[in-house]
């Protein structure tokens, strides 16, 4: 694992990605100390929609709240949601993929046909379906819904890897020696799926951040007064035109974070498969 890490550090894209992600994760984690204002403090009508200035580098919003402070706290909310949902979706996807690939037969056919169907429903439609049925969700609910609707791709990747591993000699050897199913999965299959799953997880982080932003923009994600980056961009046409900075800055932060994860994912994939370089 140490050697993998040192190889990763020689990859330029992975390093840049890590730097971007680390920067924003750090700022978000330290938001309490870094943010100049309380993100929910309404500084009064006189401070409404102030353009960027020395006091408010990113300006203020409709309620006179400091946009920079809200962006920092918002990045925290978005990142926490993304980490938890990706963890959930990777866990489900890996389990399902392992089960389908390892059991084969009817289990495999049924799960994979279901995954095919689920992948045919555009993600936003699927999320609207779920969010529309469950009335109003909190952050935990949102994490669960995002996680539960995002594992299909991962299960396919894992299943394919399991199928490939299953055919290799050492698996036959292990089975003929009477090694239990659990041990085979744990010691032979899991290490092999680790790399592609890590790539999927890294790229998934960026995707979830974008999706969460989209849902919050539609008014179905994180609810006020919690600041998530998506929520901050959803103020509507009036605010967009009157105070563009309230939308522009959260958007730029989302882009930079997502670029960071994309670079990390690309870099990781490059080191796994040098041909794509």
């Amino acid at each position: 694992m140490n050697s993998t890490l040192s190889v990763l550090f020689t990859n330029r894209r992975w390093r840049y990605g890590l730097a971007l992600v680390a920067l924003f994760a750090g700022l978000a984690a330290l938001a309490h100390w870094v943010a100049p204002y309380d993100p929910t403090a309404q500084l009064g009508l006189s401070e409404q929609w102030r353009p960027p200035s020395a006091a408010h580098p990113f300006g203020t919003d409709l309620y006179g709240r400091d946009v920079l402070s809200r962006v920092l706290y918002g990045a925290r909310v978005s990142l926490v949601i993304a980490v938890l949902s990706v963890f959930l979706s990777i866990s489900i996807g890996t389990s399902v993929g392992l089960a389908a690939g390892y059991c084969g037969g009817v289990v495999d056919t049924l799960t994979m046909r279901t995954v095919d169907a689920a992948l045919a429903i555009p993600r936003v439609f699927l999320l609207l379906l779920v969010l529309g049925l469950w009335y109003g969700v909190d952050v935990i609910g949102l994490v669960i819904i995002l996680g539960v609707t995002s594992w299909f791709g991962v299960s396919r990747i894992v299943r394919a890897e399991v199928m490939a591993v299953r055919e290799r000699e050492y698996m036959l050897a292990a089975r003929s020696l009477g090694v239990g199913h659990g041990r085979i999965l744990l010691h032979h299959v899991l290490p092999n799926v680790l790399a592609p799953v890590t790539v999927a997880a890294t790229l998934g982080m960026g995707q979830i951040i974008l999706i969460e932003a989209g849902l919050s923009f539609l008014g179905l994600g994180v609810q006020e007064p919690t600041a998530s980056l998506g929520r901050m961009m959803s103020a509507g046409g009036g605010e967009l035109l009157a105070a563009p900075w309230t939308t522009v800055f959260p958007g730029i932060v989302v882009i930079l974070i997502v670029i960071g994860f994309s670079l990390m994912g690309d870099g990781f994939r490059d080191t796994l498969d040098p041909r794509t370089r």
Partner: protein
Amino acid sequence: MARFLAGRLIQAIAIVFVVASLTFILFRLAPGDPFSTMSDFSSASEEFKDQARRNLGLDQPLHTQYFKYLANLVRGDLGMSFSEHRPVLESIGARIPATIVLAAAALLVDFLLGIFVGAHQGAHTGSKGDDALSVLTLTLYSVPVFWLGMMFVLLFASNVGLLGILPATGAKTTAMYEHLTPFGQMWDRIKHLILPAMTLGLAGAAGTARYQRAAMLEVIRQDFVRTARAKGLRERTVLFRHALRNALLPVITLFGLSFPILLSGAVLVEVVFNWPGLGRLVVDSALARDYNVVTGAAIVAAIMVVIGNTIADILYRIVDPRVRLES
């Protein structure tokens, strides 16, 4: 080809069946029913609600409901829209053309631009231009599509944007539209289409370009490209006729896979630009808890995805002689 299409049709029906079952399960898993959560009915008496439930068959056993639901689906009956007071299929049907126009225009931008940029990059990897375009496509690939739309509004929208050159709301001018000449009406619609289609198309083009670049890079080091050079062909012929033709094959697969993403993006773009399509309908319905419309829209979207995949498969067969002549 006929057997292939028949196979695809069966596959498509299977997928729609599973999608319908999934939506039914989700619907039943949800807490309460329309009458306990929908605000319109909060003041209604329990008696009235029970009557309404009986009318909709919500009091019957689950499997009866399920089979009824499937039977209705086969007949194209997706139930009634609570908020629009008409059959769901009608509500959706009224919105689909606008979404198809938007999606088609966006696909055009997506693939024309994506293929051109990606192929150019793949043929000149390591150059300054390639590096600059890589940064640009990576950035565009990471932009929330609705935010991109809002930036376009700020820049281009008439009256309010910096440049003020293009309409940014709706599919046509509302007030004077009837008084325009047929040509004027068409021009009006095209002008309204530009910003939403560019937004959705550019977001997709970034992904397509990244994919096309990788595909081109893979093809350009193949032996037959060297053969083409050894024959004394122009570099342009080598790149476009020999390399790109082969590098387009994986992009056709991407084309098939891009439909779910395209439709997801269309939902957000339609909201930003007030585009009267399926996306806005589904968002409004989700906010109004109009379940039948949301489930119906999900099924219709899945069908559109399956159709898109089939088109891609057919295209692949046309372009790649190895697949075409196999069967």
